[in-house]
């Protein structure tokens, strides 16, 4: 601290003045701590991947890639495979995305394209956001005691009438894929809706005015101008919603039936990776824990990839508009 050009100010009694040696020390320390906290996230993610990967290593060397294609989960014979769970995870998330995505985008359009006066739109947006605040277990409970009894007669009628179609190949006796996917759709709807709303709001107003000025009807403007313009943002919403569905645990563990089978039927019980972890982990022995760690690693890989893709698409979408402005 040899050069202190403002030294005289320090004695002048002014509010402003050069930082003292103590200030410099505090500044360095504080910035060091902040840097450390930021770096901690990096360490945390690396630690999560390494820890789960490390614990999965014994199972990986023992079962190899066959683990991903085997359908057996037998604790007695120590035969483990997660193909039914991977199938159930992807199938249930896909069904949820189909429904939740459709409704989510419809709601995003409903909220942004002047269907409601602004104040009512704000209230409706709050309702959708509250949907996101309801805990997963509560949806599970609701699914067991409200949705399944409601769904069962419809499902069984469909099975009787159209049992030849593989989707209705079984009857719904209790928990099953259909109620699980429905609840999942409700849970990802707010994610899809809110990201799509942001994407639609980013479109400069003049784009919409130009479309209306050409004489389009409201829906021609939406379908041919607004949605294509917001398409990458909406795609990101769908991918991130899918990612959320893949990792959802409690509601699924309560509703999907935890049965390790691969079936196209919407009414058959199934299983997902997250539900497998939730239901087997607490009572698992050491060998099964290793297999579960392998399953956890598979879930981690799937969700990390899906989320990274979603974020990349979203980044691309925002960048596009920043360039246009």
């Amino acid at each position, binding site marked *: 601290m040899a050069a202190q050009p403002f030294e005289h100010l320090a004695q002048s009694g002014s509010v*402003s*003045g050069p930082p003292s040696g103590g200030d*410099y020390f*505090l*500044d360095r320390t*504080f*910035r060091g701590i*902040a*840097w*450390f906290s930021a*770096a901690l*996230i990096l360490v945390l*993610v690396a*630690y*999560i991947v390494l*820890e*789960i990967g490390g*614990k999965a290593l014994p199972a990986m060397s023992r079962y190899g890639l066959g683990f991903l294609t085997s359908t057996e989960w037998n604790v007695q014979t120590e035969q483990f495979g997660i193909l039914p769970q991977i199938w159930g995870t992807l199938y249930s998330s896909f069904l949820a995305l189909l429904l939740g995505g*459709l*409704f989510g985008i*419809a*709601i995003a359009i*409903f909220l942004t394209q002047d*269907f409601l006066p602004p104040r009512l739109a704000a209230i*409706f947006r709050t309702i959708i956001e*509250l*949907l996101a605040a*309801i*805990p*997963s*277990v*509560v949806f*599970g*409970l*609701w699914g067991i*005691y*409200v949705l399944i009894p409601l769904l069962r007669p419809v499902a069984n009628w469909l099975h009787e009438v159209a049992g030849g179609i593989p989707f209705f190949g079984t009857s719904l006796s209790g928990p099953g894929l259909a109620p699980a996917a429905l609840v999942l759709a*409700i849970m990802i709807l707010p994610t899809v809706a809110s990201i799509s709303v942001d994407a639609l709001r980013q479109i400069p107003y003049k784009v919409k005015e130009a479309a209306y000025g050409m004489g389009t*009807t*409201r*829906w021609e403007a939406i379908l041919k101008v607004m949605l294509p313009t917001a398409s990458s943002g909406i795609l990101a919403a769908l991918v991130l919603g899918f990612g*959320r569905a893949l*990792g*959802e*645990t*409690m509601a699924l563990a*309560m509703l999907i039936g935890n049965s390790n089978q691969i079936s196209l039927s919407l009414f058959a019980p199934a299983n997902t990776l*997250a539900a497998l972890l939730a239901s087997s*982990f*607490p009572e698992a022995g050491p060998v099964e824990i290793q297999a*579960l760690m392998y399953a*956890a690693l598979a*879930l*981690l890989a799937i*969700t*990390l990839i*899906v*989320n*990274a893709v*979603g974020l990349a698409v979203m980044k691309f979408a925002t960048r596009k508009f920043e360039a246009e402005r």
Partner: protein
Amino acid sequence: MSAPDLVVESQLHTLERTPGGLLRLQRSPLEGRALKSGILTGLTWLAALIAAVPLFSVIYMLFVEGGSRLSWETLTALPPSAFDLGGGFGNAIVGTVVMVGLATLISVPFGILAAVYLAILEPDSRLAHTVRFLAKVLTGFPSILAGVFVYAIMVVTMKSYSALAGGVALAVLMLPTVILAAEQAMAMVPKKMKDAAYGMGCTRTQVILQVVLPTGASGILTGVMLAIAGAAGNSAPLLFTALFSDYYLSSLTEPTASLAILIYNFSGMPYDNQIQLAWAASLVLVLIVLVFNILARLIGRQKY
């Protein structure tokens, strides 16, 4: 205003003239394009109404099934065993509050400090970009994997399920929410306020502590409240970190009850008493989550 009649008749044959001679530009609602638009509008309204049904159904069930069972006893008593009547979930409420509190204590300081780095210190460094990306990835991280991770690092080494492990697992899930919200709040602090402070000879630390943090406080607090609301409702990571307990918490290193796990456990039981308690516990849990959500909204509204 006399438009050439030729054009009107050849191209815009559906347009009529008003008595004043002006073109009537309104579309007939039965015209093909307008009809399609009208049908789609109707379908959108229908979709919006259907989407709101589950929320109201859940709320209705919570108040009817859970509200009727809510009493001082259910809020304070211990969970009943299989065939017992009565009982409650006082220990689960305490467990949830303690574990969410622990998670807040761990995640908020680190989260805000990391956000300081991202928003003020080095917003464009490679570390900042990486951390921002990872934080966003972590918001979509399956919560059950946080449980698996903490099981591996804490439950195995401490050889016991504990409230501490539950708190750490919830902290892992709260951290990205806190970081991203705090970063956004701090980035919104006007540059001239910071420049004024720098001009007075403040160090960066003084600017952050005395200008940026107080100015961004409401935004940061909103993020913290939302993170708490999320953590309170989250149960998957507690399944095999805190497990469950039928008794009140007496130390942080023993298995601990939580509302979410109680609901999960009781929902599958064949006894009416337990199922009623699961609904009542759901009502309490949803109310806790809603209170923090509403707090977040109120705090956020004051400022912006």
